[in-house]
């Protein structure tokens, strides 16, 4: 057994011991269901900062982001600004959800939405979104972690076996320790991820020479038109330019866009999809579990926007683009691979050859990145099944012990479903997993209704959500397969018009939601919803002296969206010098698009800071505000009646039948 593998085994074993230790600690501190599901709503701000940041970015950032930069160039690197757009969801919704959770005792967003809209159907739809996140999306993450282990051990460890072993450890500490264990382990996982990305980036810069040499090499690359997407319509190397504002192509798999898929419209709508991460039901659980809102603003502004944004722009770009430069210099073969974990795995192997201890730590960092979101979604998925299915419909009188037990069973079911789909049906899992981000984004309107807009009605939000989910499905490969199953040949492929499925979903969601809300206003429902908003207005409204800043806030956000991730980002292609003009033509000494990304990253941090702090969207600026609110102890109104209402049994039967059909289709 080589030295590298011994070091890897030792590092992974130490990491597993660390995880299980905190799982045991979490179990000892979990007395009630509230302890287990929400850490007794007592997670300290610093833990929230690290755990939420880590689970927002996770394996996507560590494994996928550099690999896609390598494949598609700086046009994909524009999505580094997701470090700004992802916390934007948190800025708008976290504090207000926290307030509602404290006031009404919500444990899941399904409970919150069902109570607010008096709609059990909405609870089920939210559960559907949660399941899509929990099963196929997580299955993809688990498969990536197994594949990474296989790459790092040079094939000595089978990827599937590694995946099961890694998932077993995550299951163990999540199942026994609950959310507290997830949060505690998440602190180290988030830090490891950040340090790992920085370390790999530094190694890349060191191997190339220095920052100047890196840009000189990029200038040479920019003068050619190599790469899978060739050149853009303006003749720039697609690695260095956004291929237009929008391209009215039929979609990937049917008609390829010219110069690459990452047009401005794709970047904007993909940003919507990424914003869906913090709109996912699982993230509401983080909001509810926080001791106070003190951690929200630092998480959104400093941890996500500032630190993660800089790391993605400076180090992940080096990792992705640096692979082109290093390959030309005869780098080890691992850098040829660009599949999930391939590029990063190649770097880690390369580093491990000269410093096995370093390679093993980076391997653990990569694992940590994947597992932080896996653990979070295992735990919160189990919570959602326990509260929104078991307690709401099967056993409304469930006590703490029963809820905890079912929560643990839920974690086990999710873990097993993930592993079975990842092992036996990876293609279907990939298709379903691709729906997750788009699905999460569809909850934006519902959350906006609860937190901001009382005039959005139940009928509007539910119909909008359903239509939005359908639109997401039929602009992804899963929808194409589904249509083909029914004999329909869709004339479009994936992401038609270079608009991500999340964008299509949100368009129809908002359109239908607004239209239907206009025609379904009912005074009694409005009065019920207004009660929630009166509470929010009392405790979270902007002080009168700051209200003149509202237009400034809107303008700042819209301008940033327009230029940072929207139509005008094409200006960045050559505003600081043409990409094929050589380094002498580059005003900033770096590719124009990269400079544009840095500029709008800095402005984005300012914008998020303004919204979170100055506009008080994430802080309580007034001193003396009590954080204790009298709990609303009324039982969940639907619970007692749910078990005897024939409609719920019918819906349950439909869902079970649908689930059985899907399983039969997946596994034969």
């Amino acid at each position, binding site marked *: 057994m080589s030295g590298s593998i011994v070091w890897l085994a030792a590092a992974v074993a130490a990491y597993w011991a660390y995880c299980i230790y905190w799982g045991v*600690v979490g179990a000892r501190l979990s007395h009630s269901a509230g302890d287990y599901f929400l850490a007794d709503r007592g997670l300290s701000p610093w*833990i929230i900062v690290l755990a939420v940041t880590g689970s927002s970015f996770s394996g996507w950032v560590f494994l996928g982001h550099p690999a896609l930069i390598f494949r598609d160039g700086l046009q994909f690197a524009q999505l580094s600004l997701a470090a700004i757009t992802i916390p934007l969801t948190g800025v708008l919704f976290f504090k207000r959800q926290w307030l509602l959770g404290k006031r009404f005792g919500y444990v899941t967003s399904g409970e919150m939405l069902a109570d607010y809209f008096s709609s059990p159907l909405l609870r089920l739809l939210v559960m559907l979104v949660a399941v899509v996140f929990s099963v196929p999306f997580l299955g993809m993450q688990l498969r990536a972690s197994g594949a990474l282990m296989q790459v790092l051990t040079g094939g000595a460890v089978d990827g599937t076996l590694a995946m099961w072993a890694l998932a077993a450890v995550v299951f163990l500490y999540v199942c026994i320790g609950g959310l507290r264990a997830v949060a*505690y382990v998440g*602190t*180290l996982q988030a*830090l490891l991820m950040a340090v790992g990305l920085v370390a790999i980036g530094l190694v890349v810069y060191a191997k190339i020479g220095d920052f100047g040499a890196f840009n000189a090499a990029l200038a040479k690359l920019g003068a050619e038109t190599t790469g899978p997407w060739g050149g853009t319509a303006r003749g720039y190397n697609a690695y260095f330019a956004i291929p237009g504002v929008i391209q009215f192509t039929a979609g990937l798999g049917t008609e390829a866009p010219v110069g690459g898929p990452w047009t401005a419209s794709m970047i904007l709508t993909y940003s919507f999809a990424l914003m869906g991460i913090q709109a996912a039901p699982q993230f509401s659980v983080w909001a509810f579990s926080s001791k106070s809102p003190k951690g929200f603003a630092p998480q959104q502004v400093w941890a996500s926007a500032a630190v993660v944004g800089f790391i993605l722009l400076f180090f992940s770009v080096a990792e992705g683009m640096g692979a082109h430069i290093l390959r030309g210099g005869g780098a080890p073969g691992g850098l040829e691979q660009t599949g999930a974990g391939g590029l990063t795995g190649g770097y880690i192997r390369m580093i491990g050859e000269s*410093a096995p*201890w370093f390679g093993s*730590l980076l391997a653990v960092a990569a694992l940590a990145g994947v597992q932080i979101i896996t653990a979070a979604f295992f735990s919160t998925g189990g919570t959602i099944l326990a509260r929104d299915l078991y307690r709401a419909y099967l056993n409304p009188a469930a006590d703490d012990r029963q809820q905890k037990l079912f929560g643990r069973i839920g974690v086990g079911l999710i873990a097993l479903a993930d592993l079975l789909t990842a092992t036996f049906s990876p293609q279907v899992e990939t298709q379903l997993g691709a729906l997750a981000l788009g699905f999460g984004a569809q909850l934006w309107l519902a959350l906006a209704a609860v937190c901001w807009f009382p005039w959005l009605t139940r009928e509007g939000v539910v119909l909008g959500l359903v239509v939005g989910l359908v639109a997401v499905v039929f602009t992804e490969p899963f929808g194409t397969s589904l249509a083909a199953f029914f004999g329909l040949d869709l004339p479009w492929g994936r992401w038609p018009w270079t608009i991500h499925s999340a964008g299509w979903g949100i368009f129809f969601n908002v359109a239908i939601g607004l239209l239907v809300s206009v025609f379904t206003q009912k005074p009694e429902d409005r009065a019920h919803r207004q009660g929630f908003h009166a509470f929010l207005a009392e405790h979270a409204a902007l002080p009168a002296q700051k209200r003149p800043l509202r237009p400034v806030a809107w303008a700042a956000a819209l301008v940033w969206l327009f230029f940072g991730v929207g139509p005008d980002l094409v200006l960045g292609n050559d505003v600081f010098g043409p990409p094929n003009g050589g380094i002498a033509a580059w005003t900033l000494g770096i590719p124009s698009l990269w400079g544009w990304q840095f500029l709008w990253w800095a402005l984005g941090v300012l914008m998020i800071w303004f919204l979170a702090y100055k506009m008080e969207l994430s802080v309580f600026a007034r001193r003396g505000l009590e954080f204790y609110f009298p709990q609303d102890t009324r039982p969940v109104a639907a619970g007692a009646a749910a078990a005897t209402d024939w409609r719920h049994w019918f819906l349950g039967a439909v869902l079970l039948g649908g689930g059985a059909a899907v399983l039969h289709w997946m596994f034969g």
Partner: protein
Amino acid sequence: MATIKETERRLAVVTTWSLLGSFGLGCLLSGFHSDNLLIGLAGFVTLMGSFVAHIVINRIYGGGFRAGEIAAAFIAFGIAVLGFLTGWLFDPAFSVTDARLGLMGFSALIVSFLAYLVTKHGIRRRFSMFHQTHNR
């Protein structure tokens, strides 16, 4: 049963030492292995950073180092010094750079520890502690 506050303090300490301690230790090993003074000193600096972070955590959560932490630190330091001396005396590949690295690094750790004691207890009280022990 440990309180939540004490548990979170322990979490902060363990997380800090796990992260910085592992990278610091790795840099140390690399420094000794490849006779690289810079990398080795970076390892020692990282370990000192862990120590400083630990002090900050103590300040935030209140209280000082716990008995178990002090014991673990002295044991780890002792093992490290023993390993260094053993390598110096018996390892033919042990170079001048390695010796320099070890001496500088361990000296820096001792100085930082003494600086902490002086800062926390003051010079007179620090020496008074020894006088009181001696006069007993």
